[in-house]
């Protein structure tokens, strides 16, 4: 079974600074997807960024980028130029590619605070 681990329950960053959130996962599959979801106080689940395991190039979405290390099974999220609106719970998630299931497996989350 696949597992996702986020070892940082809470992180804090100054506005305009850069912060990196860590995520490791365990799987025996060779093809899969990894995601970062943001959950602000409204509790809405918002997709931040996605990485396909077969792609060596790290995904980027504006101020958000990932460092995907497949051999190390590591998938960290870097937020550049942090803004007050980035304050939220961030979940790392895994999804198999193909097969019968498309379910997301989440980590326990990292609560990010942004200091003005």
């Amino acid at each position, binding site marked *: 079974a696949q597992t996702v681990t986020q070892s940082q329950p809470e992180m804090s960053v100054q506005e305009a600074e850069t912060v990196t959130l860590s995520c490791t996962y365990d799987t025996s599959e060779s093809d899969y997807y990894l995601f970062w979801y943001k959950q602000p106080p409204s509790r809405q689940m918002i997709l931040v960024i996605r990485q396909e395991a077969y792609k060596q190039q790290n995904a980027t979405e504006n101020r958000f980028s990932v460092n995907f290390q497949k051999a190390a099974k590591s998938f960290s999220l870097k937020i550049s130029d942090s803004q007050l609106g980035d304050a939220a719970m961030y979940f790392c998630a895994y999804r198999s590619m193909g097969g*019968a299931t498309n*379910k997301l497996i989440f980590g326990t989350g990292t609560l990010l605070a942004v200091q003005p």
Partner: protein
Amino acid sequence: AAGVIQSPRHLIKEKRETATLKCYPIPRHDTVYWYQQGPGQDPQFLISFYEKMQSDKGSIPDRFSAQQFSDYHSELNMSSLELGDSALYFCASSLGLKQGPRHEQYFGPGTRLTVT
């Protein structure tokens, strides 16, 4: 753009009562997922449906049942409610796996269930 609709948004029930949560997927989406997020926890997969058939099952109690209807909306029925069922219940929708593995899950705003 149309999003996933969940109703009701808030629900208060007493122990041993029943509850029905409804989910209306994004138009053209044929796959629906249900997740349960307890207080301070990550979302846990409950069950999914593709083309009105159950496609995967997670940690869903026997007291819960779900189905997907011909118009692709889904209902999660919960009976003999317990205090521990108090949680945020998310529905997500996507295009099915047969249409390609890349399709994202889009989350609804969730139904907050409180059992007293």
